[in-house]
């Protein structure tokens, strides 16, 4: 119980401490968007015969005719009251757009992460057990190869191979086959929603749709995960308690699986947090290639069009997620290793 209380205190402290950073992110993004040389009013007032009058009208509607400090104060007030403005690109409130698209991005990133872990952990373990061997070098080479291909290239190649040539993957256009019936919107995570309504065919369809983009993302994060697993397992394997365990005659398998691995996974957990945050911010390109209706491609379109509100909303959302992921890792760490809370 004391452990949980202490974790709770820690989390609270960390959360309060992260508020200035969030404010910094908001203000910085706000100013950065205003520095962009593109004027959203000029860009969107592009109807036939649109003139200066239309541009001015759009600017007034967007509130861009006011001085920047006033715009900032209004924006901060909006955030405090739960509004993030309206996207001109989609014509919808940013909050609604993000809420609709966040599950898509989370589902993709999480599946990518799970796939990556499923590969990286075994690879890291076998590499750590035989350091310096051809297996070790092979694993390292393989993982590094994944980082070397830009995600937009590996994505396009996967589409070409599995959709165009072999025809086994479904068409790479979003989360669900366009002719399939979508599940009721319960959690927004399609796969979970399909499970909740017991539609296994739908689940399979959603999973098939997810597979290629998730692989693309997994390839990219394989290396840091495998590398960390290997390094941390090697450190643990060299420590005293493993020697003790071995010396009292435990089977090597048991030593590795039960004692070494459990301790080695803690540093991996930290990396997982970092990797997951990066994936959320960096899946912009993957979403673009796979027409994935996530927040990354949303922000990208908005950025190209100098559409301020969606980009600001996206950055804020990612920053908040970053804080939440760190807190989660903290809590998991606290549960796994009670010593942390003493610090």
């Amino acid at each position, binding site marked *: 119980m004391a452990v949980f209380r202490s974790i709770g205190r820690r989390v609270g402290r960390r959360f309060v401490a992260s508020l200035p*950073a969030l404010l910094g992110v908001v203000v910085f993004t706000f100013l950065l968007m205003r520095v*962009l*040389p593109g004027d959203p009013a000029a860009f969107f007032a592009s109807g036939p015969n649109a003139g200066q009058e239309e541009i001015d009208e759009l600017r007034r509607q967007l509130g861009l005719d006011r001085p920047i400090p006033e715009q900032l104060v209004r924006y901060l007030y909006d955030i405090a009251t739960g509004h993030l403005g309206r996207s001109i690109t989609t014509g919808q409130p940013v909050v609604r757009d993000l809420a609709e698209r966040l599950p898509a991005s989370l589902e993709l990133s999480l599946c990518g992460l799970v796939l990556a872990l499923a590969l990286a952990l075994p690879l890291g373990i076998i590499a750590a057990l035989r350091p310096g061997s051809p297996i070790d070098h092979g694993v390292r*080479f393989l993982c590094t190869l994944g980082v070397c291909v830009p995600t937009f290239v590996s994505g396009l190649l996967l589409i070409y191979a599995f959709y*165009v040539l072999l025809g086994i993957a479904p068409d790479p256009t979003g989360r669900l086959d366009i002719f399939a019936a979508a599940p009721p919107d319960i959690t927004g995570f399609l796969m979970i929603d399909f499970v909740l309504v017991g539609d296994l065919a739908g689940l399979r369809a959603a999973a098939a749709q997810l597979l290629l983009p998730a692989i693309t993302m997994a390839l990219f994060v394989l290396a840091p995960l495998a590398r960390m697993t290997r390094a941390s397992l090697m450190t643990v394997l060299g420590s005293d308690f493993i020697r003790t365990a071995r010396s009292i005659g435990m089977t090597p398998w048991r030593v590795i699986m039960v004692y070494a691995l459990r301790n080695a996974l803690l540093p991996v957990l930290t990396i997982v947090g970092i990797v997951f945050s990066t994936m959320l911010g960096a899946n912009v390109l993957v979403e673009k290639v796979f027409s994935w209706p996530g927040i990354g491609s949303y922000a990208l379109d908005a950025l190209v069009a100098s559409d301020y509100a969606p980009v600001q909303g996206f950055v804020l959302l990612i920053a908040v997620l970053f804080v939440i992921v760190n807190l989660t890792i903290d809590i998991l760490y606290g549960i796994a290793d009670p010593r942390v809370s003493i610090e």
Partner: protein
Amino acid sequence: MNATLRHTGWVLRSNPVTTFAAGGALAMVIVAILSPWIAPFDPVASNVPNALQPPSLTHWAGTDQLGRDIFSRLIAAAKLDLAIAASAVGLSFAVGAVIGSFCGYRGGRLDRAVGRIVDVLMAFPLFVLAMALVAALGNRVENIIIATAIINLPFYIRFARAEVNVRRNAGWVEAARAGGDSHMSIVLHFLLPNILPTMAVQISLNLGWAILNAAGLSFLGLGVQAPTPEWGIMVAEGARFISTGQWWLVTFPGLALMLAVLCFNLLGDGLRDILDPRMRT
């Protein structure tokens, strides 16, 4: 020194992957330096009637949409890409290491203030930040370098800070302080050189990443300006031809990009092994 050399030699011998990577990186640097002399064709001269030719004995990697020789462009691009990566990483290392070292050494209010700023940067979706920076500053080579450097900065600051923090009360630092060296001098002359080897690992890994970052920016139209040859642009342009059967447009630049990133990454890994004291025993 001798021991380090011997250790390095041992690592290289026992670690063929690192040797391969070091050789590859070296070869690329040489190609980049010699590029104006070894490219068989002018990398920007168009020849439209000869467009989209598959690889042949004249054009080893085929020709692109404007009939330019892809092989020559690859070689010319090596220079620019390596220069972008090296300057971006060099910049963030120089700034990050100095700031980080001072923070780690002095601690206190300065440290906390910088820590806050680093937190802000870390919480950003970094690729989007780079895009916005390049869009705001204009997509010229120097701005791509600056943007890449800025999004790398927090990692260097944190890393240098942590490394210095561990060492700031070490015996030899105390000795320097007792010997009357100024704080500035201690950081610059003693601490920075001392953490340099550990940071070399980071630098090498980062070089590869910086190349990829520039390529990603190019893919989104925020990269180096045409017709300058650059791997990222070539891959991005070539990607348009994947489904039309002109595979050489994306394959060769893609391989060059991959090879470069691969070499730097493996080299970084190898460096880590060289520096890892446990490997020496």
